[in-house]
């Protein structure tokens, strides 16, 4: 069912901006042979896209004429080929969660999560590529294969930098245990894999990558763009990438991780918990793109199984539904992924004043509830949580959009 809905959505929906970027980079390579050193993300994403796009090239070489759909910037079958590695990753995550937990419904909570389906099937963004080795890393860690887990986290980080969060925590754990050789191997493998990934860029586009992507992620970029996090929205601050608060968050997480590790008998539980907290912190204090909201989902499902918090697992499903609805209606408009151009269908929930502030408040509330499920005693998922989030949304809507108490 997860495969069907993804392929069905992939056949006609897509993010016109992101897919145009991916299409440009792949077409440039296969049409003129030029390697795109200005690919808008990490190189490993580009390599995977090129690998799967090669099969599309084979189809085009037979003379196949690929149609476009409505206002989309890419061709229809072309768009599906961009989704294939993402769908494979989602299936891989499903299989890993199933193997880890032994419970089909836990695995289904991921595969059938609307936010994940939306990102992979409708949008075409590559967060699943990062999450697959991330989840694999925790799986390997649970089997006491720390070296492979470390490598898996590095691979995850090379798809999207968040993967380096659990890698850093794992390296910190190794350091605390004074396993110097092991620590050296972990760092060495990270450096080796990173160097291998960036090898084509050496002498060609390394400076551009450093300035265009790395500095932006660290909040040291020069471009003034707006983030969707609650801090940026209400302070009016324009953070170029991550805000300075993220460094405070990073330090706090590292310290609390160390304290918790010393007191806990389950290192896996500690690593999972503080990786999830890291994902929440990034969503609260940094650029907070809507696709980043998917990162806590598979990790929370694993954590829910390890700590017997079924309420948390069920909450991630509601969290996914609400995040998808908020992103679609507020940040993009219902028509954007469908038609390839913005078009408002439901004026009242899509085109109201102060909507990004309402979005950031609602998302912040859901993330805080997630933290509650993580840290407080295990409770069932109750319908009252849905009512609470809806109430926050409506209150924010009333005070920020109708009463306009703040100029956001």
């Amino acid at each position, binding site marked *: *069912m*997860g495969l069907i*809905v993804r392929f*069905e959505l992939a056949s*006609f*929906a897509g993010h016109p901006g992101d897919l*145009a970027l991916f*299409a*440009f980079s792949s*077409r*440039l*390579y*296969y*049409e*003129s*042979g030029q390697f795109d050193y*200005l690919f808008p993300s990490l190189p490993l994403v580009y*390599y995977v896209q*090129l*690998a799967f*796009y*090669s*099969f599309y*090239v084979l189809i*085009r*070489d037979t003379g196949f004429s690929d149609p*476009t759909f409505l*206002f*989309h*910037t890419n061709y229809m079958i072309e768009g599906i080929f961009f989704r294939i590695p993402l769908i494979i990753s989602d299936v891989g995550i499903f299989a890993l969660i199933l193997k880890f937990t032994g419970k*089909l*419904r836990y695995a*289904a909570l991921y595969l*059938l*999560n*609307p936010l994940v*389906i*939306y990102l992979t099937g*409708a949008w075409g963004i590559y967060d699943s590529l990062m999450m697959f080795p991330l989840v694999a890393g925790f799986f390997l860690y649970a089997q006491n294969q720390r070296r492979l887990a470390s490598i898996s986290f590095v691979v995850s980080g090379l798809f999207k930098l968040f993967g380096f969060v659990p890698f850093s925590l794992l390296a910190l754990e190794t350091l605390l245990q004074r396993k110097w050789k092991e620590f050296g191997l972990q760092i060495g493998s990270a450096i080796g894999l990173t160097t291998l990934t960036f090898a084509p860029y050496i002498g060609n586009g390394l*400076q*551009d990558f450093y*300035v*265009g992507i790395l*500095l932006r992620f660290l909040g*040291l970029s*020069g*471009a*003034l763009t707006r983030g969707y996090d609650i801090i940026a929205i209400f302070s009016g601050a324009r953070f*170029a990438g991550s805000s300075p608060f993220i460094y405070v968050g990073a330090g706090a997480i590292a310290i609390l991780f160390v304290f918790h590790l010393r007191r806990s008998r389950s290192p896996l539980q500690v690593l999972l918990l503080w990786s999830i907290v890291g994902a929440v912190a990034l969503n609260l204090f940094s650029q907070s793109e809507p696709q980043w909201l998917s990162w806590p989902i598979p990790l929370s499902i694993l954590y829910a199984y390890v700590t017997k918090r079924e309420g948390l697992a*069920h909450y991630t*499903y509601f969290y996914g*539904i609400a995040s*998808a609805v908020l992103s679609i209606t507020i940040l993009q408009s*219902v028509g954007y992924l*469908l*038609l390839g*151009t913005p*078009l*408002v*269908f439901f004026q009242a929930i899509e085109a109201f004043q102060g909507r990004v502030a309402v979005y950031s408040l609602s998302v912040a509330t859901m993330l805080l509830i997630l933290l509650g499920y993580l840290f407080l005693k295990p409770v069932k998922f109750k319908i009252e949580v849905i009512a609470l989030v809806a109430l926050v949304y409506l209150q924010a809507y009333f005070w920020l959009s109708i009463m306009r108490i703040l100029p956001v």
Partner: protein
Amino acid sequence: MKTAIYSILKIFQFRSKSFRLYWILVLLVLSLAMPAVFLRGTLPQNTATQIDGLAEFASMQGASLGPVTWSESFNNSSEWSVPANPPNVLSISGSLKLSVTFPSTSKAQAISVHRNVNWSLTEIPIITIKARVSTGVSYGVRFFGVTANNTSFAAWREGSSLQHRPGLGTIETVSANLGTETFLANPKLQLTGARITEVLFYLEAAPFRSGSFSLTLYDVHINPTITTPADSLELNGNFTGLVANLKSSVSSQGVFQVFVGLDIKGSSDLSYTLYLTRGASILAQGYTYVPKVATTYELALMLPALVNSSPLFAGNFASSSLIVSAWKGEISYFRLDSVDIRFLATTPSPSAALNTANYNALIFYYFVFLFMIPASTILLLIKVFRDKD
């Protein structure tokens, strides 16, 4: 040492699980990588192209505002003319205030105040206007001039940021390049020897808008553009803008992205934006950038979708230019490192109108697959497996 060798050899034992998985992984990676290597550059279509803008580089100059060459003193009311209707009050004493009462009517209404001037376009003058206009109405400024052989022309156009500006009720400062405004309104005009001879400010009200409104001008002055040519791709000095001219015009069709690698230093409050122009039209605009602590190098991105303003300084109207416009502060050092202009073939838009009524079925289909089917499946699964448990 023996243990390490033994554990490595174990992986390569034939028929061991690790051995099979290892080779499956290798085959998988090879089967994906090989086509990517051998099919490189084989697709016959030409939908994605990239050109090196530096290969088209012609010249570069720094630009800044020269000293004020003309300034309105607002102490001689005879210099300004205003019609009798609609009834209005014009007071000029250190500033100009035009107050008007619009009656309620089904037609749009307007009033204007104008004066004669004599501004040479050869110096590419920059006009700066400081004004306050009541909320509820719009305002604009228009220019008229003559060429070197006294042919009249209008140096304004609909679509300019100087037209139909909503009144904010607060003081705002607007600047515009009169050379660009004139060229956009008259692309074939020879600017050499041309002069602006009249400036006109207007207030306009939409149908059924009535009440008392005012336009107050606090400052109107002209600065010429001072340019400092660069010998190469590098420039030192104090500039408010930089213009790098290309040898020819960039095609306006299918511009997708423009990446500019540059080194820049300036005052601590420097903020700047990049533009790619074709003649006087803006093809792409970048984000607003500030200097970074980590490095002087910036990789600026420009997109057609970001175009929402125009630079203060103009490039070569006969070709394309890359313009760096400082909104605050000054640029003290600039070096152009790279320019990559990317084109992506655009697909033709559908002929059906972009109307929600045409796509309701598609929306329903979308929500069914995105929400309804997954949620129903999950509810069923949870119920079945909870009962089982």
